[in-house]
């Protein structure tokens, strides 16, 4: 089963980089059957990245009001993304969540869709993660790695 792991975010905006940092660490493991990609999160190009996948795992920073570093695992395969995570964003560039729902509407969503969200704290310009988020990276790394291995088995 082909799994595509996509890290989303802007690597120059503090905690927004956490998705990219995580998938780069996972890339170093060279797990079989796993393709790693990165994205700015722009809706339409994101939809292109998973067209050939049977399973997609998306890793992104969250801004939902939870404690910084909180890890959320959302199975979006069959159900819509929880309303508290759907935010109003700039509408010339739709978000990850809208990309998932648009793909679902067009029947272009892979059979399995998992989203790992790590609650961020600081999104200002800079290349450092805040301590809570940096701490969450290790745990999220373990969890996502298990998902990837299970997927291959």
């Amino acid at each position, binding site marked *: 089963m082909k799994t595509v792991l996509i890290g989303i975010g802007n690597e120059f905006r503090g905690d927004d980089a956490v998705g990219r940092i995580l998938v780069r660490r996972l890339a170093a493991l060279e797990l079989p059957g796993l393709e790693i990609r990165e994205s700015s999160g722009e809706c*339409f*190009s994101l939809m*292109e990245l998973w067209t050939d996948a049977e399973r997609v795992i998306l890793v992104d920073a969250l801004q939902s009001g939870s404690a910084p570093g909180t890890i959320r695992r959302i199975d979006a395969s069959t159900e819509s993304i929880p309303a508290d995570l759907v935010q109003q964003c*700039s*509408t*010339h560039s*739709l978000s990850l969540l809208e990309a998932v729902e*648009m793909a679902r*509407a*067009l029947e272009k969503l892979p059979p399995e869709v998992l989203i790992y969200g790590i609650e961020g704290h600081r999104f200002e310009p800079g290349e450092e993660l805040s301590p809570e988020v940096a701490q969450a990276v290790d745990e999220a790394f373990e969890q996502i790695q298990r998902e990837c291995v299970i997927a291959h088995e």
Partner: protein
Amino acid sequence: MSEKEIRTIKVDYLARVEGEGAMHVKIKDGKVDDVKLKIFEPPRFFEAFLQGRRFEEAPDITARICGICPVAYQMSACHAMENGAGVRVEGAIRELRRLLYCGEWIESHGLHVFMLHAPDFLGYDSAIEMAKDHRELVQMGLRLKKIGNDIGIVLGGREIHPVNVKVGGFYKAPRKRDFLKLVEDLKWGIEAAEKTIQWCAGLPFPDFDQEYEFVSLRHPDEYPMSEGRIVSNHGLDIDVSEYEEHFEEEHVPYTNALHSVLKERGSYFVGPMARFNLNFDKLSPRAQAAAKAAGLDGQCLNPFKSIIVRAVELLYAFEEALRVLENYERPEVPAIEVDPSGKTGFGATEAPRGILYHRYGVLGNGDIRDAKIVPPTSQNQKTIERDLYRFVPQYIDLPDDELQWHCEQAIRNYDPCISCATHFLKIHREEVS
């Protein structure tokens, strides 16, 4: 006055426009009392921080003003610098620029027609809702838009904020074979754009023909993109360098974007409808025929029908891009030398939403002394408000939610780009000792 006689239609956060804006319509005694398009996105001070930067940096810095029309900023900046230097970019480099601009029109119009504007006509809250019922249509729209992005990737180096544009031309000119894949896509795009025009023509439009002063570029030989004189249907016909003699910007207290007006006549209208009405004769025969078949015989005065005009421009852009590719011969050098040091340069090009004006004063050492940028949305703001003033009385008997729906649609007729409009609020500093 009792409260019952005052009715307020308010949208605190406009959806499906680029950036952050709000709409406020106040109706008193059955008459429109006040209309405000409020742009509350903070100003971005691009003109100020261009000061002291090298003239070569202007295309890349100003491209950052917008993620949807970066090519327009790059083109206006390049043309302004070349105008200052007294040189012209010709031949294959000029053709490549036109191709890049076609890509941006395709991407921007594709997005607006299918994702932002169409849901208004069909009664959906979003393109996602619409996609559930109109899957094939939305897929066609996404593919159309993607071809625009692909032109940006091949020629610009990446799809958003291209890195290959420089004053005088490009850093690297693609080989003819780099474009091979695009040829088939463009041929498909021509057919798809034609279908799009037919589909748009069948949408339900409110009766709303209006008198406007349309302003666009006009070029003797082509549908305008990067060059031409600035003309209007009320007799304006000026060189780009005369822009500031005829247009001025006003501060308005409730918005962070300046309102641009014609000094003599006030509000005016830029963008696809203006280009179409002033340059119908320069469209390709196929685009002209498709427009006529859609009921637009060289003129469109109903802004709700701008969706048809955008589709016509989509068709033209696909045809034009294909023409450039089929005739393309790689230029010997990808750019010419340009030195505007000590000069002032003016540039205006046709961004997807209309005229984008740049003026730069350049010091003798090549640093930028001052900059002025007037984006299309600020030029259309007054016209958008005027439309609401006239539209609301016609539909005043509708319930609030329906009236609000139509008012939002009336704003989206202009595809406003609020992020573009807010970067030029000026700070007046008073020094007190």
